[in-house]
């Protein structure tokens, strides 16, 4: 069987027999009633637009974070270059532990 011929024949028939454009009775009235009760704004559409708008600043933050994370660390404090140390991790640790360091030592002597 010639499938191409069958395919062409079926398409020809579909083309020659378009579907009806009949509109059900009072359809416009039903739609207008629906529109009057439906929200004027599509909530999902607003949500999608908000997400797209947030995508750009998120991308900027991501790139900035990646740049900071991947930047080579500065030279250590006792290096011959004489540049000040920028050890962010060490400074963070020092800040967090400062509260613990300032407390008086517990007396474990019994």
């Amino acid at each position, binding site marked *: 069987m010639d499938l191409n011929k069958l*395919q062409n024949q*079926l*398409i020809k028939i*579909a083309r020659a027999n378009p579907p009806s454009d*009949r509109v059900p009775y009072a359809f416009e009235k039903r*739609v*207008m009633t629906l529109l009057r009760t*439906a929200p004027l704004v599509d909530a999902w559409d607003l949500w999608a637009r908000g997400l797209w708008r947030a995508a750009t600043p998120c991308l900027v933050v991501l790139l900035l974070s990646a740049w900071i994370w991947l930047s080579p660390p500065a030279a250590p404090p006792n290096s011959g270059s004489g540049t000040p140390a920028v050890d962010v991790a060490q400074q963070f640790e020092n800040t967090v532990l400062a509260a613990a360091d300032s407390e008086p030592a517990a007396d474990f002597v019994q």
Partner: protein
Amino acid sequence: MEPTDAELIAAVLQGDADSFEPLIEKYSPRVFATARRYARRESEVEDIVQEVWLKAFQKLNGFRGEAPFEHWLMRLAVHTCYDFLRAHQRNRESSFSDLSQVETEWLERFISGAEPGTEQTDAARLLVERILGELSPAARLVITLLEIEDRPVKEIAQLTGWSTTLVKVRAFRARAEMRKVLARIAREKYL
């Protein structure tokens, strides 16, 4: 003198929702004809068309007036029909034994080379709907727009939002997909 589409749209955007009704009356036949290409049940067709008008009403402030309102509306209708196809995609494959008697008779007349009579048109239409119903949503959409409605590729690209290259690629794949469906049904006849 009847108001133009632009005047009606402007009135709706200014808060006169009743001005939307003449637009529904004017373009519903076209939207219904489009929806009937993609849904078989009349209840589904009505749901699709209602969805189209609801979206048109909600997104009316996005209509810039650069193209006729009908073009903008039809683009919305095609998108809604495509969403419907994707939501109702079936995995069931028809076999030759699933065909009705009239469809089988039409197919057998075609295979034998006999000219089908006009009374066989309904049978052929049923067969076409069955075949189209088994295509993937993208294939069915492009076959309907390109082959059956005979629209140019550029217009299909505008309606669907696809590039012209993508339309052509999908058309090629859709024809192959349709041939596969026909081959599967026809193969069972000869086995």
